[in-house]
């Protein structure tokens, strides 16, 4: 599979879905006006990626400074997709990074972790 790369904009994060080293990363701010349209290629990529047999361990690094409510829903759906893959036997690790000063990013990470208890979900202070 080809690696998917999307450059950051003022209101969208830098995204790299790397099929070579199996590290997926979303980094920056996320408040597009058409969140679902914007992330559609990412979700499609993930679906195809996790449909593969014999994947090694996959790591998702989320380093999000700020996200709007529709991005919150989108990230939930994204973790949901990962959880499904996890239930089918894929080994997945989610790292949620936050800045020491950023209370809301830390809280948001904790909230997601609660919703995906069965996953290897780490909240990491930068």
């Amino acid at each position: 599979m080809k690696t998917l790369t999307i450059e950051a904009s003022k209101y969208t994060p830098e995204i790299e879905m790397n099929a070579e080293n199996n590290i997926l990363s979303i980094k920056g701010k996320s408040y597009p006006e058409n969140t679902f349209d914007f992330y559609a290629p990412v979700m499609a990529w993930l679906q195809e990626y996790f449909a593969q047999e014999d994947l090694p361990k996959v790591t998702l690094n989320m380093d999000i400074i700020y996200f709007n409510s529709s991005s919150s829903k989108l990230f939930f759906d994204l973790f949901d997709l990962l959880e499904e893959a996890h239930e089918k036997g894929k080994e997945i690790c989610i790292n949620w990074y936050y800045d020491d000063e950023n209370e809301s990013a830390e809280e948001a990470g904790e909230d997601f972790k609660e919703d995906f208890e069965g996953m290897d979900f780490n909240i990491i202070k930068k």
Partner: protein
Amino acid sequence: MKMFPFKEMLEREGIIFSFSGSISQPVLAGIGETIENEFDSIDLDPNMIMKIFAVFTEQMQNVMSYSKERREHRDNHLTSPGICVVGMNDKGKYYVASANIMDVKDEQKVSEKIDHINSLDKEGQKRYYKELRRSGKGVHNRGAGLGFLEMAKRASEPLDYQFTTLDKDRSFFEIKVYI
């Protein structure tokens, strides 16, 4: 139009930023960045800046998505006339307010939604937020129906809103959120 009475009113209301006109994603990003920079330059707590920014973003995206006067452009981009204000009241509390024209038909639905959010305490709001996010009940092609809850999470007082009926089709909607 005399600007002096306008300026006096802005001062009386403690208004720090105000904008009235066509609201779009680039306008939102531009004003949002200005708000961040301005508050950062007076060393306001970064968490407070984040809260103001978050409420502002939700309000602007609500105006763009739900205003009766919204206009569709290519690639699912919308713009709409609206008003937004960031200010500080006489007790030193920051607030973010916005206004736009709504369809009279939406009045009841919006009122019920906000009243319900206001009836919950912070824990209840958090549970409701997570429940809606999980179920996807409020999802439409541009959002998740979580905007008012997102504002409430950052608010220190109940969401303050009002509808003023303009004619049989249109209502003027305003919302003010104290951080």
